[in-house]
């Protein structure tokens, strides 16, 4: 039986605003715990949230870049659960009326093909604090510096089918948010967090089967591996006639396997209801137009420029070179497969073609390194 993996990715990006989503406390990277909080972030009695306009502006920028519908009316909701790093006992998020809907991200596969991945929606929500379980002699330390930081949750449709595709999507998204200067993309620091939803189905079928969620994947390499092993695990279970339970799992890098975090049982009851302390966000077409004018040239547009040989400055960043390299791989399939079957001298040929396509602006060292990696 041939199986197909179905992957949907939830990415939470921390927006690079100066202050938090609902308060004026600073978002600067800081070592000293609990020094960047205020009454609002700590959920003190009587404190009320006030929306940060810069966060909305950054979200709209992202929406424009992915061709999404920027909803003229969207609103916040309370999502309830008890955990010490969630000060109010609820998170302010968006539920029924997210800010952005129906966007897409074009990704370039290894063979140079373009694939469009739908982004079903993106929404604004506040981050929780951090729980530190070591260093406190059997107790847990809670640092609320992160509580209230603005997050944009970006949810893709389950259109990805291989670990490589998933990583390509993530890298493309990663480049985009940094280009837009809305996120610094630091996976280790947690400003770009990936949760993967994975299920499998017989190749050729179209239904969506029970999925598991793998959380807290903080490197692209781990994403790739986690998807690989989880898909295998599910296939093994289904082949043995065992049903897949909808659960949340974590990836253990040392063992290279996923393990259970908690059982989802459909969905935890978060008792959502509209946030009564905040007005709905009403966005005017005029404001959207103003923000559009501030958009930088997007990676996709730059790619087009290479194709049309319009680009003339030195290219130094890897992601742009990768885009160009993939195009060349797509243009020269014979040379590519010959190299792969042992004709290593063809590498220089391909390097040359990439440099030619960049009009001499790409660094040969970088091109060679990227080509070797992709091949």
């Amino acid at each position, binding site marked *: 039986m041939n199986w197909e993996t179905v992957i949907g990715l939830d990415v939470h990006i921390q927006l690079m605003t100066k202050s938090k989503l609902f308060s004026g406390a600073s978002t600067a990277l800081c070592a000293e715990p609990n020094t960047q909080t205020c*009454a609002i972030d*700590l*959920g*003190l*009695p*009587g*404190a*009320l*949230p*006030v*929306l940060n306009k810069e966060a909305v502006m950054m979200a709209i920028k992202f929406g424009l870049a992915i061709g999404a519908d920027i909803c003229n009316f969207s609103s916040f909701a*309370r999502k*309830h659960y*008890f955990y*010490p790093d969630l*000060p*109010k*006992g*609820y998170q302010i998020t968006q539920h029924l009326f997210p800010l952005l809907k129906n966007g897409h991200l074009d990704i370039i596969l290894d063979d140079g093909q373009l694939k469009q991945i739908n982004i079903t929606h993106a929404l604004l929500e506040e981050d929780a604090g951090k729980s530190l379980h070591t260093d406190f002699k059997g107790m847990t330390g*809670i640092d*609320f510096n992160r509580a209230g930081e603005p997050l944009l949750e970006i949810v893709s449709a389950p259109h990805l089918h291989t670990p490589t595709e998933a990583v390509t999507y993530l890298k493309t998204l990663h480049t985009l948010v940094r280009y837009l200067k809305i996120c610094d993309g630091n996976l280790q620091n947690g400003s770009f967090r990936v949760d993967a939803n994975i299920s499998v189905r017989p190749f050729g079928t179209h239904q969506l089967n029970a999925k598991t969620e793998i959380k807290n994947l903080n490197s692209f390499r781990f994403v790739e591996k986690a998807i690989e092993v989880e898909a295998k695990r599910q296939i093994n279970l289904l082949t043995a006639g065992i049903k897949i339970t909808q659960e949340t799992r974590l990836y253990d890098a040392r063992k290279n396997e996923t393990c259970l975090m908690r059982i989802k049982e459909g*969905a935890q*009851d978060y*008792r*959502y*209801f509209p946030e*009564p*302390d*905040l*007005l709905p966000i009403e966005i005017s077409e005029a404001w959207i137009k103003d923000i559009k004018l501030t958009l930088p040239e997007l990676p996709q547009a730059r790619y087009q420029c290479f194709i049309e040989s319009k680009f003339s400055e030195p290219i130094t960043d890897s992601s742009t070179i990768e885009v160009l390299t993939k195009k060349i791989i797509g243009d020269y399939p014979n040379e590519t497969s010959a190299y792969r079957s042992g004709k290593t001298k063809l590498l220089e040929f391909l390097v040359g073609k990439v440099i030619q396509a960049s009009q001499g602006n790409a660094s040969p060292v970088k091109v060679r390194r990227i080509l070797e990696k992709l091949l």
Partner: protein
Amino acid sequence: MFFIRMGKKMHYKTIAALSKSLQQKEISSLELTQYFLARIAQFNPKINAYIAVCEDMAINAAKKADDTLAKGTATPLTGIPIAHKDNLCTKGIRTTCGSKMLEHFIPPYDATIVKKLNDAGAILLGKCNLDEFAMGSSDEKSYFGPTKNPWDLERVPGGSSGGSAAAVAANLALAATGTDTGGSIRQPAAFCGVIGLKGTYGRVSRHGMVALASSLDHCGPITRTAEDAAIILNSIAGFDPSDSTSIDKPIPNYTASLNDNIKGLRIGLPKEFFSDQLDPDVANAVYGAAKELEKQGAILKEVSLPCSHLSIPAYQVITTAEAASNLARFDGVRFGYRCQEPKNLNDLYERTRAEGFGDEVKHRIMVGTYLLSAGYNDNYYIKAQKIRRLISNDYLKAFEKVDLILNPTTTTPAFKLGAKSNDRVAMYFSDSLTASANLAGLPSISVPCGFTNHLPAGFLLTGNIFEEAKILNVAHRYQLATDWHLKFPSGF
């Protein structure tokens, strides 16, 4: 112990009168403040209106106020001693919400209403008792013991702002702030024979008011006269960037229009609020008030608010749901009560909340959680919000025919302590005549209009949105022609 000059009886005077005396240097704020502090020391034990008295701070503030008065830069509230309900955050001063959960909580900031009154020069005498977390209609649910009605010590003062209303009625403060989610300013005002004002939703900032039900909460003044309430409203109303639901609209001068003629004003009496549930003496007092306004030229009409029988069910659903949510933050982690030696996280949560909250609070949290839970949310919370829209529409429709709505504030006078302890639903229906104004966000004021035996009765005036000036005007005109507000409980 301070020597009290018996001849002066300063506690009978209004803010308006005493403000003049202060500005004309007939008395000093220090004198006035010491006078009230002495009265509190003497009489508060009888009624337990105050949870905390801030003697030193009050005296320091009074001295500062006297400096301001000397400079000639005073406001109508400079040097005037007031109290705050103990669910309004006061920086550096314990704010307990009448609960063990916050028994030792000291907020690091002032509520906006507190800050505005401080800035206006008012003197904070202390914090007033309330039903725990403002959940109640009798002040019997406070962790710090019940407050007693100064008119009859065996009866409740109403709630949840019972301490504030009792303090003003017993002349232990010239005014007190309260909060009103379903009637908690106006119902105790009626039971205690004083004025209680709730403005349009968003007129007065909620920043620093410990939230009960966010979409229904209001804060406002309890005073003896409508004029005093107008003076306070001038100070506390206005847009606050810290409260996203506060209204950005210019504030009229509420005292400027107090004496306006009310000839031709159309006043609607909703038939649903004059049912046979109404105590006949209360009904008479309220009809008497209506007649007095008619004498002054107002036109009385009957109106109908057909959905009003749904107001308490809708109100209870929305309040308990929002309250359960707002009280989720009380978990013993960052502030407030924490149980001794929690064994693990669940134990921390379970025992902190079981021990820190009183029974009524726990009851409402459980109900509210149930009402928001999956499978019930649509049937209860969403439906209650839809009913809320219908109730609001009833008022809007009525305001096409009349300018103001008049009805009794309560169906009965103050009931005896313990009378409704075993009948929760009966307790909830104490708000049956006041909660609609919260659901619809309309400004509403309770005005004393007579007595049933020895117990005060009050009538309610509700206006369309932003019509605070109009209801204050009518209340003031009524008080010019009557003297209910000049009656005081004996023994104080």
